[in-house]
């Protein structure tokens, strides 16, 4: 049992990606595999899991108390970081990435490392299509928005109708779980669920695989340790896309 106390990092830059999404860059680099996450300690408030969007950055959507507290911080403020944790994406050959909303965050370092050939990016509207410019530099980017303000007018999953998943060795996916479940359904129809790599989000307390708060049905897989990235064939007959659990462990339907 090796000591792993949170390290203190200082915020050096805050980038407003959209009205509700900011990237917090800090003063230390954390070696990681794209898709791995860190536990982010907002002193006096809480500690929450966050994907690393770069070696020295997290990209955060304001959704609750802890993220709201993060949004109240400025350059020069300190936060604590434990990690990186989890497995991350594992790709070789041709890779397709599918990101929805803030789900683009863990896929971004995969793309900037030159490991993504085609990127399908979806969001509610044009202003929520974060990282689009940078993704277009290293991938073939297609976008979709719910309101039609940019790219395809509709869901990012519609774009999968124009692309044959079989052409890719890996399909890396992160976004709202209902969207990810829809992608899994498409891969199932193509008979290639094992090529899908889905980054799951579950309530986490420990991050190191012992507390059990992120365990999924029916296999008892720990999202923090066995994941957060799982291949589609391991998710097909699971709670994925159906329900999750809250802080007390009670089930919540999606």
């Amino acid at each position, binding site marked *: 049992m090796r*000591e792993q106390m949170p390290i203190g990092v200082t915020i050096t830059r805050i980038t407003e990606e959209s009205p509700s999404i900011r990237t917090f860059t800090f003063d230390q680099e954390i070696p990681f595999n794209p898709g791995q996450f860190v536990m982010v300690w907002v002193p006096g*408030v809480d*500690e929450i899991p966050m994907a690393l969007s770069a070696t020295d950055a997290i990209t955060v959507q304001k959704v609750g108390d802890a993220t709201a507290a993060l949004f109240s911080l400025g350059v020069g403020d300190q936060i*604590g970081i434990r990690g990186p944790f989890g497995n991350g994406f594992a790709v070789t050959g041709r890779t397709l990435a599918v990101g929805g909303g803030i789900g683009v965050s863990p896929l971004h370092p995969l793309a900037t490392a030159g490991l993504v050939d085609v990127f399908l990016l979806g969001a509610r509207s044009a202003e929520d299509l974060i990282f689009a410019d940078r993704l277009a530099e290293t991938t073939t980017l297609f976008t979709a928005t719910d309101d039609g303000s940019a790219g395809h007018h509709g869901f990012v999953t519609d774009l999968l109708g124009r692309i044959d998943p079989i052409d890719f060795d890996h399909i890396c996916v992160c976004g709202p779980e209902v969207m990810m479940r829809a992608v899994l359904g498409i891969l199932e129809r193509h008979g290639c669920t094992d090529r899908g790599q889905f980054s799951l989000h579950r309530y986490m307390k420990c991050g190191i695989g*012992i507390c059990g*708060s992120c365990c999924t049905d029916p296999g*008892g897989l720990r999202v923090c340790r066995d994941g957060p990235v799982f291949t589609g064939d391991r998710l097909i007959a699971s709670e994925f896309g159906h329900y999750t659990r809250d802080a*007390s462990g009670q089930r919540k339907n999606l």
Partner: protein
Amino acid sequence: MVTLKPGPINVGGLRLNNHLLLAAGILGTTGASLARILASGAGGVVTKSIGPEPKAGHHGPCVVTVDGGVLNAMGLPNPSSGFTRELEAIRGQPVVVSIFGGNPEEFATVAGWFAGNAAGFELNVSCPHAAGYGAALGSDPAIVEACTRAVSRLGLPTWVKLTPNVTDIAECGRAAQRGGATAIVAINTLKAMRISTALRRPVLGNTFGGLSGPAVFPVAVRSVYDLYEACSIPIVGCGGITTADNVVEMMMAGASAVEIGSAVMDDIGIFATIAGDLYAPDGEDPAGIVGCAHA
């Protein structure tokens, strides 16, 4: 190394597949994770502690790993009576439901929910970081006795998990025995804390928490040794066990079985790993090992 004869055992009213149980609070929030641990070679499992109301637990950080151990202040998160459905998938298996309450009546109420689908109960009168629960009750022998009696009346195996954060753990053991406990579990975590020097504040959201892992093993061995001298009911050893030799040592101190928790962090297959080292067809009769270190 000493090896033991394999096979099912009976401890404190429970029939277990082997001497190794999953400790409370580790991967015990869902039926699926408990089933996974049973399938991975555990002789029995203890659930997350279940209480009278759903609880979200403390704010984070809730866990930090330290040299030789794990420091946690989870704050007893649990789904309360909703947990009954989690047990449906593992009905009939050696599942001990850990329960907590703020008084004997609450212990009895919670135990009553699970009377039909638990192999037995483990009373948490020892969690060191939940105001009004756990060690707040478990450091008073009279309350330990009353809570134990309230649950043991149900007629199911009733284990009582004790806190080492007292002057005399044997006194609490005797109180549990008077209350009708069928076994004593020792120990829960040691009250502890760390401070982040970078952020100049306590690391845990709850300021202090409980230390588990190899760092506490000698404290657990000493506690089991003391309890074996003081009590006549079986003892289940818990605290920092990571190897088969640790299991044997704990049994020599007086434990009839052991619980394993923090070691799951380094190896989720720890139960099969330890069982592989601990058992051999020509191994010794476990009954001859339990308490053999007492002159």
